[in-house]
């Protein structure tokens, strides 16, 4: 039996608002990436979507600031006054800021649109990738497996495409919605395999995953429905895609933040 005098810092440190951020950042990065692809091909068609993507970024930045315990110390300014290239969050901050600037220029129709779109493609890819990278870098939380480096960008793009289906002609985005849903579904199926085949920590995390496997089944079923319906009925498919991605991403973030080491190492 293990007991403590005092306690390690193992309690959950994120709340429901953080789960909303993990959905919003996917929406922001994904719509910005789609805007970039559209802007590279037909810049004149990208302006309306650029406003939407900019709005999602502003909303996400507000959510990040509002839910931070450091919000009234304004220490976030140090994200832009430091040079920390080994930090995923540092990259994410610059990715969001650069994307916001490029989107504003695209939305206003100022300057070389294709060049801005190229920069936006890179910066929005960073925004899509950094949440999974930031989680996977935390060695204390084995549920945050390195597979998140792929699962989070894929499911992030899926969330964005589900929204784009409502903002753009459906026949344009629906095939990509299907591809993103299938990719997310495949990576979701790989997740327990990645845990099972890891070291001792990953196997402990797999035991935790087994406790909540029903959540993954629900999320996987929603992603399957999204892929199945994407070309037939894009509207319902998009709802399934957002719900499935939210269930899976929220479970990974929420369940993953609990320490597995309270009972010894």
């Amino acid at each position: 039996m293990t007991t403590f005098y005092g306690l390690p810092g193992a309690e959950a440190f994120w709340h429901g608002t953080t789960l909303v951020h993990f959905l919003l950042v996917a929406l922001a990065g994904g719509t910005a990436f789609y805007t970039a692809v559209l802007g590279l091909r037909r810049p004149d068609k990208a302006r309306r979507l650029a406003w939407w993507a900019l709005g999602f970024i502003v909303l996400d930045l507000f959510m990040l600031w509002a839910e931070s315990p450091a919000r009234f110390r304004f220490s976030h300014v140090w994200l832009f006054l430091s040079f920390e290239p080994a930090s995923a969050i540092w990259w994410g901050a610059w990715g969001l800021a650069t994307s916001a600037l490029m989107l504003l220029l695209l939305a206003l129709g100022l300057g070389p649109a294709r060049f801005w779109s190229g920069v936006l493609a890179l910066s929005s890819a960073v925004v899509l990738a950094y949440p999974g990278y930031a989680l996977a870098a935390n060695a204390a939380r084995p549920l945050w497996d390195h597979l998140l480096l792929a699962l989070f960008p894929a499911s992030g793009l899926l969330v964005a495409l589900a929204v784009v289906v409502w903002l753009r002609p459906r026949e344009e985005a629906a095939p990509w919605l299907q591809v993103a849903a299938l990719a997310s579904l495949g990576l979701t199926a790989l997740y327990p395999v990645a845990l099972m085949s890891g070291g001792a920590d990953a196997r402990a995390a797999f035991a935790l995953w087994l406790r909540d496997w029903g959540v993954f089944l629900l999320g996987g079923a929603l992603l399957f429905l999204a892929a199945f319906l994407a070309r037939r009925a894009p509207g319902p498919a998009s709802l399934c895609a957002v719900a499935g991605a939210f269930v899976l991403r929220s479970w990974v973030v929420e369940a993953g933040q609990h320490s597995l080491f309270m009972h010894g190492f």
Partner: protein
Amino acid sequence: MQPGHNRLWIRQRELGVFPDLTVEYRPEQCLHCENPPCVPVCPTGASYQTRDGLVLVRAERCIACAACPYDARFMNPAGYVDKCTFCEHRIARGEDPACVETCPTGCRVFSDLDDPKSPLHAWLAEAERVDVLRPEMGTAPKLLYLNTPSKRGLAAHESDVES
């Protein structure tokens, strides 16, 4: 310190099988790793390592994210990450950290790992086993555990170590 938050805690464990039983009391805290994983992932440079090897947090830069394989960091209600500092302010005055000075059984020693004449090296020479926590992570903690019942020495195979 706010109630409910701890820079240092004691893990108490019952080990072994009757009749070969023992109880271990193991103090745990920030291990001031030589390769601290919390420093490179800090996005604002709030977490840093001093030239003397202490791992510290600049509260004014911290945006309150934490990453420690040993759960040694916690969220201070004032909105920044907090942890053991090895009593940096006391060390600067040439004093021992408070945990060393106040330990009633004298089970802790604090001194310079690079100084072969320091008391620590005498303790190390006498110890049957020396361990660090989670050596497989490559963090090279600078808090060393001597003759810990749950450990079998750094040379032992990982599977021999009771967790």
